[in-house]
């Protein structure tokens, strides 16, 4: 456990400090915010994929649920942003509980079923029949609570909590047990690990994190359509970043987001006309030549990656 604290201090704190100070030096605050958001999402995905091997392809479902949890609380309850953030978390958690039976599926089946579930949530929320509740396909405007500086700060706090959670998972007995499940569910079960309970907890934590990310995204961006909140690229980006960095570590997804999302933006800004092509080629090369992520470069040489 002490190692967890040390890892948090050495890895997470400098990152958090840098992100807290960055707006003073760099004025595209939204880009910084998106970095924070993807850091949260990548770590949330890490909690379920890295530690149990379930790849939630429809991870954006929780994100969207969080965004709409936030929006509905603001629109209908006139909630303060912080209360609405709580609603975002609750919305994602409820969705997580509803989708828990999906954990009975494995591999691609789980990934596809999870994707279908995210699509289903999107189709319900964007349906014109629910216009009075969700504004249906017409999108929401939350300008009454728009507060970019405050929501930036809240996003940082969520990131800090998420990183702390991952540092704990990585070093606590609970996290080790989860990884044992990932490697070999049958013998882990025989070793007395409460397989089902363990992975359910990881699943719900992961959902909660995505929901909070969605909530703070809704708050920060304030005008959006259901297509925005349920954009599949949130899932895909989070997955690609996590895998590129190396799942089941704290540092891996951080590096993944900083390098790949950084590169994504550099390409998007410098060579817009070949943006998609370059990014596609990059992803293919990464999977082929670095399938276990950046962290594996170190672990293969016998170093422990925090």
């Amino acid at each position: 456990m002490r190692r967890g604290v040390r890892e948090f201090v050495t890895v997470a704190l400098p990152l958090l400090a840098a992100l807290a100070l960055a707006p003073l030096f760099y004025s595209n605050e939204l880009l910084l915010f998106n970095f924070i958001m993807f850091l949260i999402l990548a770590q949330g995905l890490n909690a379920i994929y890295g530690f149990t091997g379930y790849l939630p392809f429809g991870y954006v479902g929780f994100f969207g649920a969080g965004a709409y949890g936030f929006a509905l609380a603001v629109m209908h309850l006139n909630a303060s942003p912080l209360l609405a953030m709580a609603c975002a978390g609750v919305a994602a958690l409820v969705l997580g509980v509803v989708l828990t039976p999906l954990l009975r599926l494995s591999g691609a089946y789980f990934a596809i079923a999870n994707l279908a579930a995210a699509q289903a949530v999107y189709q319900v929320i964007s349906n014109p029949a629910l216009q009075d509740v969700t504004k249906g396909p017409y999108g929401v405007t939350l300008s009454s609570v728009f507060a970019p500086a405050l929501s930036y700060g809240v996003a940082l706090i969520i990131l800090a909590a998420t990183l702390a959670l991952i540092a704990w998972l990585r070093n606590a007995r609970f996290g080790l047990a989860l990884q044992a499940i990932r490697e070999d569910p049958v013998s882990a079960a025989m070793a007395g690990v409460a397989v089902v309970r363990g992975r359910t907890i990881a699943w719900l934590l992961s959902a909660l994190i995505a929901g909070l990310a969605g909530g703070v995204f809704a708050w920060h961006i304030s005008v959006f359509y259901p297509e925005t909140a349920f954009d599949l690229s949130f899932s895909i980006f989070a997955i690609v970043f996590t895998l590129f960095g190396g799942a089941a570590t704290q540092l891996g997804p951080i590096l993944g987001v900083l390098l790949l999302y950084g590169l994504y933006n550099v390409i998007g800004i410098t060579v817009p006309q070949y943006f998609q092509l370059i990014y596609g080629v990059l992803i293919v090369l990464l999977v082929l030549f670095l399938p276990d992520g950046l962290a594996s470069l170190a672990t293969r040489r016998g170093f422990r990656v925090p």
Partner: protein
Amino acid sequence: MLRRVVVCLLAIACMAGARGAWAQQSRPADERLGGCFDGYLDKAQTEQASAPQPGQPGAPAEIRIGHLHASSGPYASISMPVYLGLKLWVEQMNAGGGAMVKPFGRKLPLRLISYDDQSNPGTAATLTNQLITQDKVDLLIADSGSVLTAVSVPIAREHKMFLFDPTGTGAAFFSKDNPYIALLADPVSTVWPRFLWEFLKSDVAAAGLTRVAILYSTNDFTGTQAASIRAALKAPGSPVQIVFDQGVPTSTSNYAVLIDNIAAANPDVVLELGYVGNDIAFLRNLQESGKNFRMVFTLYPGIETSTLLKNVGQSGLAGVFSYVTALAYSYPPEVGMTLEQFRGSWEKAYAKSGVEFGWNAIAGYVTGLVLGQTLACTDSLAQLDVRKSVFSLSGKLKTLIGTFELNEQGAQIGELTPIGQIAPEGKDGIHFTVVYPPAMASGKPIFGAK
């Protein structure tokens, strides 16, 4: 507190701008729109000749225009023509030495910085911010397609940057408390269908066609239009009866069963409101189904005419009603090229690009024209002056798509598109007969043709 004061001031400025006539009366004559507006192209040339004050203090080397487009993804087919139309305008201006910028009293070259958001709203948001905070653009233009436009609205507002919105018609963008936006080329969704419902309630009903079916795609653009049509048709005293009213997901690509269902409701008039892909699939399925309705209206035959013609064919379009945009109804422009000239330039520049000429291409070009006039009329590049300048054009600027006119929230209410009916022309061409409003009509509607 400070913010509230600013908002109040802006609201006042907004009202002042919107009531152009009143505002002009109270200003000295030389500051009036007319002073910089009337045929500014010619004037700019003469100014050039008659020694423009070189080396105006503080004149920038270029005017930076920030823009977003989507080269891929679901919004690419709307966004790319707008982008290329705008690009064409920028290139033409630069070929002529740049655009006249009033505060510096001379022409300055334009630099278009257009990022690709790949139809991804999150990326569009970051790139909007990039344009404002890093590229420090002088003028900011949003992407087309309401989903992508939406994310730029609060960012522009937060940075007090005036947002030129070419075609993002979402009614929610335009509110009295946000002075930092104006819709340039498309009419806002709530007013766009006005001629349609008027036509249905007058001429069409008089011809005995009173049973109307509405089938719309459930997105902001077509859903809003459906809602305003519905409201108008249900208004007290309406002679029209809605017998079928359903939404379908925008991704719907097959309408055969829906057409069968509509036929079962036995309507006289079928309104199908969707995006390009929806209209193509609907009209193809309608033709293949062998079903006949006395009047069929869809949006895109008049908006992306050549795409529709290529995909649906002459026989599939014959008899269909649609909006008549500038593609088929020429307005004499006071500024910029005529339709024929623009179309010629487009074909020359983009024949091989795979992006069809259509309304959105024109919308991009008109966005450029508005930009140009704005620069020619603005007192400074301060964004509220830019806004004032844009609003001062309202009701006066006449381009190839008609008169540019904004309501006080910045939504486009001029440039209303009349209703027309398609007739075959030649071997595989078509032409529109304008049937409503009467003042513009060039012929009578023929019901029962489809």
